[in-house]
């Protein structure tokens, strides 16, 4: 009799969720590794020009960054739309570049102080006058190694 009794309740067993934490941790680690931290928030427009004859930038501790370009839309009211230089987290004038380089250089380890590169992250629409002024300032403090940071692509992308 009971031999032919139908099994009651054919519901599926619950799926084990024991591995869920592992998956979550895996994702977490992945994003932790792949994310590049930006030390300073960008306050200028920064559409880099394209170039294909590029070399990789040195290790991060040997590089100091100078940004330049038009202030982003939320700063336009306060600072106008003329291209400006950004050092760390604030806008700066050309005269402050030298002091910035010296301060950056002093903050690095002794053996790195002579191999520092200055990366210029400049918006493509900026006029060369500003960039030449920056370069003159860099020459004054003997920061001669520079890198024009670019996107990778043919020069034709720069011409509209």
């Amino acid at each position, binding site marked *: 009799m009971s031999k032919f009794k139908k099994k009651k309740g054919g519901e599926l067993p619950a799926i084990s969720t024991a591995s869920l934490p592992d998956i979550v941790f*895996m994702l977490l*680690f992945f994003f932790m590794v792949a994310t590049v931290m930006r030390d300073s928030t960008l306050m200028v427009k920064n559409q880099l020009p394209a170039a294909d004859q590029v070399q990789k*930038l040195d290790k991060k501790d040997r590089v100091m960054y100078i940004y330049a370009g038009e202030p982003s839309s939320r700063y336009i009211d306060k600072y106008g739309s003329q291209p400006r230089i950004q050092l760390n987290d604030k806008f700066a004038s050309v005269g402050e570049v030298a002091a910035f380089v010296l301060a950056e250089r002093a903050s690095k380890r002794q053996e790195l102080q002579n191999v520092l590169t200055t990366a210029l992250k400049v918006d*493509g629409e900026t006029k060369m006058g500003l960039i030449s002024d920056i370069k003159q300032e*860099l020459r004054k403090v003997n920061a001669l190694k520079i890198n*024009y940071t670019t996107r990778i692509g043919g020069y034709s992308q720069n011409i509209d």
Partner: protein
Amino acid sequence: MAKRSAPEVNAGSMADIAFLLLIFFLVTTTIETDSGINRKLPPNEELEDPPIIKQKNIFTVVVNKNNQLLVEEELTDISDLRPLAVEFLDNGGGIDEEACNYCQGSKDPKSSDNPEKAIISLKNDRETSYKIYISVQNELVAAYNDLRDREFLRLFPNEYMSFVEANKKYSDPRTTPTEKARLKPLLSEVKIMFPQKLSEAEPSKNKS
């Protein structure tokens, strides 16, 4: 007992699979690094007596405020800049001790003597836009790289790579020190053949 229910799936190995995936992604992901054109600025002190350079050894590139390109006094499109620069550097018009035995150019006596003497002079206006400047820089570096690639392949055909690839390998931190020591003389030999002599004049003030 004939009570059959689906057995619980063993989740013990799930963590192993997760770690396997994690390690796979760790290995294959390359963190995006910045790249760009490296340049070296000239030192600030003025030279006592600047060397006299023959006009024929200078290749002048001028970019004006309307982003127009003037190469050797002629209005040029940017796509023609690279072949013109290659032609100038590779000319090898010198005679006797100034002759260039690896140049494949037209040996025009009105153009550069040899790549060692050839200087590219770049001048831009203060109103020139940065992206045009970068494009011009890019094309001039490309001209040097083209010639260096050619000589590298000719001199070291057994390397099976071009100068640019070899240089990239040299600066890659994963390359072993022995390999670096082997590549270094090869690279510098080609660099001496085509030294990058790019001179930048201070930008002209815009006279409006």
